[in-house]
């Protein structure tokens, strides 16, 4: 009967197309919005990706990675003295304004790293060398920033275009020159400003020698000491906060800075609500369109189901037929919707906006929800058919 059920479903192409449209749209909305949501949320802990270190140490009042509460430089010595620390390096992080040569201002995320060890330096440079940061007034800027802060020129065809910054170009931070010596590849940040790397001491200068400039300390444990163990020791002995930097977000530890950053944004912004609304909308639209279409499909076939009942098919057989029809439509609709979400995601990733991260879990969750929609539709149909009297086939 399963094949017969499928032939009934595929035989009514107009209804099938409508049903698939509803399911595909629903799957697309749920998968795409959830992926963009997780993309945006993954941007919140971008600093942890871009500034690699096993342990981050911060002021005890810090709640998340973008929330630097500057400490005194002397705290570095305290951390270095904790048993189990292999090395500890200072890190400065602040939002500053950069003035371009055309007089325009742009917000940047200034990252000051230790000039001796370059701990926290970007992992990949597309142009220049990290050592050149030891030259006076030098910075390394990320590719996105180079594009964003580029010069606007009018081409021979009269059209304006942006020429990205390159090594040798300069801009100013607090009236101090910043000369680009390298371009790096890093992830973009939630705050939107490009990452500008320089040395820790020069970052202090760009901050006009503020009294406290130590945002975080990057710490590496000695061999044989786990990150969690060392975090506990640091907290006990220095009264500072020590974080691990694992970013596998489905398996966070309590000490994960990424986890705490993620949940801080979850609790303190309207992002989850707005995306949750879109996902819920996808679900309800899916249920409404698919439920309605499948119900009308059942209504149209009601007299045939009544005839099948009269011929001796039990409700279990008919329920199985309806489930096969609804779940098959659900699988196809999911395939179409998730495929479209992936295609849109690829375009987004190429353009860089908005961020798009489709975890396998999103894929499976969307599949489960779409099949749930199909199941609801099938149940509505089963209830309808179960109420049909087999004797009704004799009433014309």
């Amino acid at each position, binding site marked *: *009967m399963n094949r017969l059920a499928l032939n009934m479903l595929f035989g009514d192409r107009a209804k099938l197309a409508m049903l698939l449209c509803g399911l595909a749209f629903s799957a697309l909305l749920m998968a795409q919005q959830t992926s963009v949501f997780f993309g945006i949320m993954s941007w919140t802990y971008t600093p942890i990706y871009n500034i690699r270190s096993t342990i981050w140490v911060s002021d005890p009042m810090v709640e998340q990675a973008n929330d630097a509460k500057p400490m005194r430089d002397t705290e570095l010595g305290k951390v270095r003295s904790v048993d189990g620390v292999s090395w500890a390096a200072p890190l400065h992080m602040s939002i500053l304004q950069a003035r371009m040569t055309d007089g325009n201002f742009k917000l940047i995320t200034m990252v000051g790293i230790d000039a001796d060890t370059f701990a926290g330096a970007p992992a990949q440079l597309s142009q220049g060398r990290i050592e050149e940061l030891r030259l006076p007034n030098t910075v390394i800027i990320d590719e996105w920033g180079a594009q964003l802060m580029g010069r606007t020129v009018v081409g021979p065809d009269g059209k304006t275009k942006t020429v990205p910054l390159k090594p040798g170009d300069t801009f100013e931070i607090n009236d101090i020159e910043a000369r680009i010596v390298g371009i790096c590849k890093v992830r973009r940040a939630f705050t939107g400003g490009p990452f500008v790397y320089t040395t820790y001491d020069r970052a202090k200068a760009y901050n006009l020698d503020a009294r406290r400039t130590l945002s975080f300390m990057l710490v590496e444990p000695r061999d044989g000491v786990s990150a969690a163990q060392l975090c506990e020791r640091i907290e006990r002995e220095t009264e500072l906060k020590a974080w691990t930097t694992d970013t596998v977000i489905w398996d966070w530890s309590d000490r994960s800075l990424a986890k705490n950053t993620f949940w801080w944004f979850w609790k303190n912004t309207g992002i989850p609500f707005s995306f949750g609304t879109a996902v819920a909308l996808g679900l309800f639209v899916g249920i409404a369109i698919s439920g309605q279409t499948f119900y009308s499909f059942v209504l149209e076939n009601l007299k045939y189901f009544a005839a099948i009942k009269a011929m001796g098919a039990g409700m279990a057989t008919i329920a199985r037929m309806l489930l096969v029809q609804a779940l098959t439509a659900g699988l196809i609709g999911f395939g179409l919707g998730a495929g479209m979400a992936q295609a849109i995601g690829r375009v987004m990733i190429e353009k860089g906006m908005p961020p798009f991260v489709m975890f396998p879990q999103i894929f499976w969750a969307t599949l489960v929800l779409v099949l749930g929609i199909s199941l609801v539709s099938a149940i509505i149909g089963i209830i309808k058919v179960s109420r049909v*009297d087999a004797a009704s*086939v004799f009433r014309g």
Partner: protein
Amino acid sequence: MSQPTFETAVRTHGVNMFFGEGESRVTALKQADFEARRGELIMLVGPSGCGKTTLLSVIAGTLTPQAGTVEVFGQRLDGLGQEDLTTFRRKNLGFVFQSFNLIPTLTSLENVTVPLLIQGVSQREAEERARIVFEKVGLKGREDSRPNSLSGGQQQRVAIARALVHEPPLLICDEPTSALDKDTGAQIMEMIRTLSRAPNRCVVVVTHDQRIFRFADRIAEMEDGRIRRVVDDPRQLDTTHL
């Protein structure tokens, strides 16, 4: 053509059937006694609202009477639960409906396989058996046609093939010719009568169509929810009120 035997195939005795409660209660069958024999084609006739369809539904096991006994090929239907009635219908009944009830999104052959698939026969075997019956009803070559592309007569032939494919002893026909022209109706009835001649088969036809009365072995005339009389010759009927 073999002659009808006189062993009972269907018997109802003292069947009462009503719908609704209180003032809106409608009595459809009142002490309805009916008998059909093996190997015969019997017609149930009577004016609209006399209870023909209700009696047919009771015989088919799709309605359970409030009182009386129903026996089909030795099996008592009154008192059977829904599940047992469903199983009974699956094994023993073939249906020919007034409006054919062929599923339009399936091919004609697929429509004919439905009763076999309900019985759990494999798709391949069901199709093989359906093709044989298809040939018997004179529709060879139209297996892949959708019902809507067939004429009314051809659709009813497909419906007959569907009713017979699982070789049920009892064939229930509800107004089988009402949607057909005179000649096609006669051809269909000729076919149904031939089919009824099997020794272990009985055909019960409900009809308003006086043109096909001549195909009946016997005619049971109903009035006000009961069998008024049973005649062997349609000329004995007073057809003015039918």
